[in-house]
């Protein structure tokens, strides 16, 4: 894998506006018996490429759930552009318009073609049918899958599936990409390709990318790394 263009840091870049701000973030499950997050504080600026790393069970995925408004914190505040995500009346609108999700297991719908899978998030927009189709085709072309538009996921390789998932995450032109171990299910060659693609999209679209990874080589390509340990951001790293 290529070495990063610039060494990742644990500090924020200067000058950009804050997109996420977490203060005393706590998340408990099973009536407080499981403590996934034990008081997390951080800030992420607009246009940052941040990798969240840490051992299994440290709370990375829980944090991603909160960033994507898939769940609410038990305590503390997580703000997106100054607004508390916990207070959102319609989290689905935030997920549809502001966020693009990329999952480790791709999570494509098996009975839909690549072109149809990319159109799925567009149901929550007022985009006309024809435009949806054209936009989905353009997104698939941008990830190098223009010849796979009508293929079903089951007929495609893991790398191709993840590229469809990346195209899908861009369907509504989100401000933030949240990626959960995007290379975790790929061989090293495809992992490399997918990471290159993410970096290219990040550069071209000037979006904020937050990815979770175990892999230090993947984390090394991010502009900043947040290390987590035992439900907290590890500031000693």
């Amino acid at each position, binding site marked *: 894998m290529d070495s990063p263009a610039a060494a990742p840091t644990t500090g924020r870049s200067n000058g950009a506006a804050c997109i996420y701000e977490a203060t005393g973030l706590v998340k408990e499950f099973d009536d407080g018996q499981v403590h996934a997050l034990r008081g997390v504080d951080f800030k992420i600026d607009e246009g940052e490429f941040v990798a969240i790393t840490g051992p299994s069970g440290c709370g990375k*995925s829980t944090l*991603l*759930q909160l960033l*994507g408004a*898939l*769940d609410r914190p038990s305590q503390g505040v997580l703000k997106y552009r100054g607004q508390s995500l916990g207070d959102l009346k*319609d989290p*689905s*609108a935030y*997920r*549809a*318009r502001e*966020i693009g*999700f990329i*999952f480790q*297991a791709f*999570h494509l*719908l098996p*009975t*839909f073609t690549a*072109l*149809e899978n990319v*159109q*799925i*998030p567009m*149901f*929550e927009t007022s985009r006309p*049918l024809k435009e*949806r*189709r054209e936009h989905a085709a353009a997104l698939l072309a941008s990830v190098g899958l223009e010849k796979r538009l009508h293929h079903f996921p089951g007929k495609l390789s893991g790398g191709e599936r993840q590229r469809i998932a990346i195209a*899908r995450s861009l369907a*509504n032109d989100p401000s933030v990409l949240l990626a*959960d171990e995007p290379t975790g299910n790929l061989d090293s060659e495809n992992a490399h390709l997918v990471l290159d693609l993410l970096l290219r999209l990040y550069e071209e679209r000037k979006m904020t990318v937050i990815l979770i990874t175990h892999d230090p080589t993947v984390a090394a390509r991010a502009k900043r790394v947040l290390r987590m340990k035992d439900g907290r951001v590890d500031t000693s790293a």
Partner: protein
Amino acid sequence: MNFFSVVLRGLWRRPVRTGLTLLGISIGIAAVVALVGISHGFESGWEQGLKQRGTDLVVSNISTALTPKPFAAEMRDRVAKLPEVAATSELLVEITSIESSEMMMISSREWGAFGWQHLKVLSGRLPKDALEPVVVLGQIAAEVLKKKAGDKIQIETEELTVCGIVDGGAVVENGCVILSLELYQKLSGNEGKINVIDVRAVPNLSRDAMRQVCDKINEVIPGVKAMMVSEHLSTSQGYKVIHAMSWGTSSLAILVGVLGVMNTMLMTVFERKQELSILLALGWRRRRIVQMILSESALLGFFGGIVGVGLGALGVKLLQAAPAIRGLLSPEISPGLLLFSVGISIVVGVISGLYPAWRSSRVRPSEALNA
């Protein structure tokens, strides 16, 4: 790709299960079409038969049985005296088994009265007089009994001759054995008894005026009831029981369909929990997920309804041809009944989908990351 194709694709995920569920609901709908169609057809066939005989009003004691109770023939004289009555025809009607047919209507009618006038002789002839030991057969009855003019037929304890085959212009008329009232009273030991008086009113009598005639008849003959032709059968207790039974059976079949669809949709929701959570993570609103599940369920109902009306119509055709009941049934499968049945099926689909849809709304989007 529109929302409808998403819904269709959802059903297509498990084609065998979708097909079996669809078959389940379609059997319920087929039962509605067949039973209600038969029940309506019986009613309208009966009415048509009366109209073919030129009857405006029917006087009978039709209570708990399909055929009315006998009463004294002298009652007719009181009816005939009314100024609005142009003619009367006495009948003694029974449904009984005759030779190879388990259920056949015997319609014995006053010799020379208007009840004989509309019969078109297809072969042979009509009886020569009231006591000639002969019968005529409606053409369907002749087919069912495999008789032609000149053959012998066993009625009660006597062997009579089939003197002719007739076209009575209606299924009920064509499906019965017709003979002279006097002869049948003698054969069945019901001398002096009748159970129906067909009444022909004077020309150009309005519907309201006919209703008034009914009231007058009811006053002069206590114990029997005069009714307009269109209301005759529907007021019969026996018919009401058949009607209620057909709806009861249909409802039961529909209930089974509801449970089948509900089971399928619940399994769909459980199996697709991950998919639903992914859709939520991708920004779908819960309302859209609920709409998707309800639409799948309604579509299942719609397709089940379409298949069901086809099966029901086919079933009725087969039933109509069955020797045991041929000539007694003229099922009425109207476009209205078909539309109604498909409508019921869609409602069944929606109702069956309510609980699964509610369950689908409980799926948490965070499960997408845990999967």
